[in-house]
């Protein structure tokens, strides 16, 4: 359940990445993958790389997906800039 909460929150955050000029590595799809992956990874890291039992999933668990998603998006953007991606203004 925790993984579902993290990934849902990560993808929710990704939806707002569209407001930033698209210089993400792999474009909008790359940012999606980074946001989803890092939200789960960060959640795991917070719980000591264990899946919390269903009874331990709380509102906070969902919020734990936010920093991971932001880190993922930031990393994707940073790599994109380093690789010389030029923003597409759509």
């Amino acid at each position, binding site marked *: *359940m*925790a993984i*579902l*909460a*993290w*990934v*849902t*929150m990560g*993808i*929710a*955050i*990704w*939806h*707002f990445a*569209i*407001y930033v000029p*698209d210089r993400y590595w792999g*474009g*909008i*799809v790359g940012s*999606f993958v980074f946001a989803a992956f890092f939200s789960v990874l960060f959640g795991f890291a917070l719980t000591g790389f264990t899946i919390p039992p*269903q009874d331990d*999933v*709380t*509102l*906070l*668990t*969902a*919020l734990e*997906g936010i920093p991971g998603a932001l880190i993922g998006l930031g990393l994707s953007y940073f790599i994109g800039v380093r690789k010389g*991606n*030029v923003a*597409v203004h*759509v």
Partner: protein
Amino acid sequence: MTNRRRNLFILLFIAGLIAASAFVVATKPTKLGLDLKGGTSLVFQAKPTKQSQVTADSVERTIEIMRDRIDKFGVAEPEIQRTGTDQIDVSLPGVENADQARNQVGKTAQMYFYDYEPNVLGPGCKPDPTNQSVTGGPSAGNGTGALSQYDAVRRASTCKPTNTGKETTRGAYYLVNTKTEKVLAGPAETRADLTAEVEASKDKTVAEGPDTEVVKIPQGTVVVAAEGSGGNPAGRYYVLKDQPALGGLDIKNPEQNFDSGPGGTGAPNVTFDFTDKGKKAWQETTREIAQRGQENFFGGSANNAFQHFAIVLDDEIISAPYIDFQQNPDGIDAANGSEISGGFTIKSAQNLANLLKTGALPIRLELISSSQVSATLGKQALDQGLIAGIAGLILVSLFLLLFYRVLGVVAVGALAVYSLFMFAMIKLIPITMTLPGIAGLILTIGVAADANIVIFERVKEEVRAGRSIPVAISQGYKKGLTAIVDANVVTFMVAFILFILATAGVKGFAFTLGIGVIVSFLTAVLLTQAVLGALGRTRVMGHPSALGAQSTRQRFRWDYMGRSKTFFALSGLILAIGALAIGNKGLNLGIDFTSGSRVVAELNQSATESEIRDTLTPLGLRKAKIQRISGAEFRSNEAFQISTETLEPAERGQVEQALNKEFGGGTYSFQTIGPTFGNTVAKGAIIAIIASLIVISSYIALRFEWKFAVPVLIAVVHDLLITAGVYALFGFEVTTATVAALLTILGYSLYDTIIVFDRVRENIPRMPRAAFSQILNRSMSEVLMRSLATSFSTLLPILALLFFGGETLKDFAFALAIGVLSGTYSSIFIATPVLMHWKEAEPVWRKRRARVALANAGEVPAYVTAAGGAATEVDIDEAKKPRRRLTAPDDPNMTVGREEFQELVGDLGLEDEAKQAPTATAEPDEPEPGSGADLRPEDLVMKDEPKTPKPKRARNRRHGR
């Protein structure tokens, strides 16, 4: 074949099918599932025994034996099928006692005959045939001299293993509490089986701890219950040397009879004959027993000297008759067979005879799920399903008639034919109709209508473009077919994956959905095309108003792509709320996933949840989840769903008894799901979703291009997560039906996206000067009505399910409704903008966008605008026509000549670029400022673009003349 002949042929063919279908519908019965007519459903998991491993063959043999048993019990139309590698689903219509059914069908029925006295083991694991405190003497087998189960297990564990080849087990494992001296679990064949049994137990005292110990009984020794002690831990047990004289395979023709011989009691008994091998073994064994009795007789009553044999069925002594050495000094002649008597009722004697008749199961079966539906509830559910189906059909028909006029009449006719064909298929195959199956059928009504909508909208477009009605019909079918084929293939693939991986209940849904997709293609495309082809030149279709296309519709031109940010933000917010709901409340997983028992009780007297809880508390069910449920399938408003930990059959009886006593009786249905089954369901669901995503994205990548597949996947993930969020938010129970709904959503979401992407694919080569966002906006404005109409037509039958489908289908329909709405939304506002962002980043589209912006004062208009009347579109049909070669290339190394290239450029409306790019080999990646040469001619062709027809060669007329 001319079109007219082709249409006539199709119409005659369909007319023939209609007649055949009507015959089938009139003559064949409909096979109803348990949920519609009441009965018991059992799911067993196969476990190995010493004699047999779980293989495909042993499972098949088990199924055969089970079928034999069920036939003998007189159950009509039972269904037994293998699921996965080691599970067996048994459906028993009309059987309302799950416990009895389980005993009749799933009992292993391993029967052995032991020479009793020399095989009963006393202290030190030594036989002591003459010690009555070990054997029980004249009361052999009935508990005299026997031990508690704990002591028996302890004694047996000290015995030495043997390997004579006659042993019936490889040994057994027990979990015992050394403090209370009780056996907590076992016997289990392996240590792992014992652990699984302990974990599955709802009794909290059954757990490994400091006071517990796992005890292993070696091969060669068995602990058997004394007569009447079976399954009772407080009963008495004997330790036997596992050296049976005969087995169940050595007897034949077992029958229930009566003890009617001289001095007979007239009580029911079971008589049987022996096989040739059995006869010999029986004669020898009884002779030995008789001789031993003779040897032990030292005068007085002979009864005290009589020796016994024990008949052991599934680790319980069911009878221990003696051999009268005075009457049978040479043993009992096996020619006349033998009998088992004592303590039988007619029914129990019949059951044993039947079990012996069908033989022992080669493998051990563990019940992992059982459900029982009362016939009344089943009938009510069937009525509700039928009402929902009829309501769905009427709603869709009304929509088609209002929206498409004459075309609508044709479509409604096609729907009626579709319904008839489906009904005939269901009876002919035959498909067992279950509640999810009816839901699948109702949903396919919407899918069948979708195909018509896609084509009709296309026909209307062609009419509005000024084409004659016959040409518009022909073009509409031609152009709409690709999208329909793609969408139907995707839906069919989802149904197929669901059918392969889902549990039995959902299989019915998947099957009807899959068959429905095929049949709908026949009726919604072939039939309607033939009918319209025949009507196209008649007065009925003489005016565009007959098609609902009387005026040139002003397309709703909206900057879909420009506003995508707003909709992205909206989706983000919805998902964030969903994530918080999942975190806060979690998904309400039903017993299909968590294991346990569910009782649906319709009580005769009014009750409240707390009153029911008070009634159940003395039974240890204080924590049961009790909720009032409503639905037209219930006669009163006093229907409740009670979810508890796993209830044993006896406990189910207690629940029923307690509620009857308190609330004046009622109707009950029970369902019990074991943890193994829950895991299987959860695993199957995840595999099904992943497999669907992989297969479908591969198909889309193949049919479109791989960059089209990724936005589709993102949109699908979006829909699934939104549905999960809504479920968490409202606390709806997630069941196996929900998984089916999720997979259907997955398929449906793709259907909608495919319609949009199909138009994008068509428009890309048409608009060689447009930015990608302009192509998408144009495509969206063209297919919006189609997309909304197909969603609406699918939503109508779902709404019918929601309002008329009863309690069971309500949650399923709700998930579908959310999914369809979300699918439509995500096709327009998620998949398409993601595609735009991704494609616009490609160099070729980036340059084209820059050029459009440059020509429009730095802004890219939402739609392509023609400057100075210049053409903005290319007529691809015209462009594709084969043409003669104008000149030979100037340079032999070039593929086309200058003039030829100029003509091609002119055709594509790229005259300006022609001045800048004198040859076809000009590098398009680095265009001159203001140049439109951003695409090479081959870039304008999508993967599935038909190849340019080869110029016809002059036919060699010398052949065959």
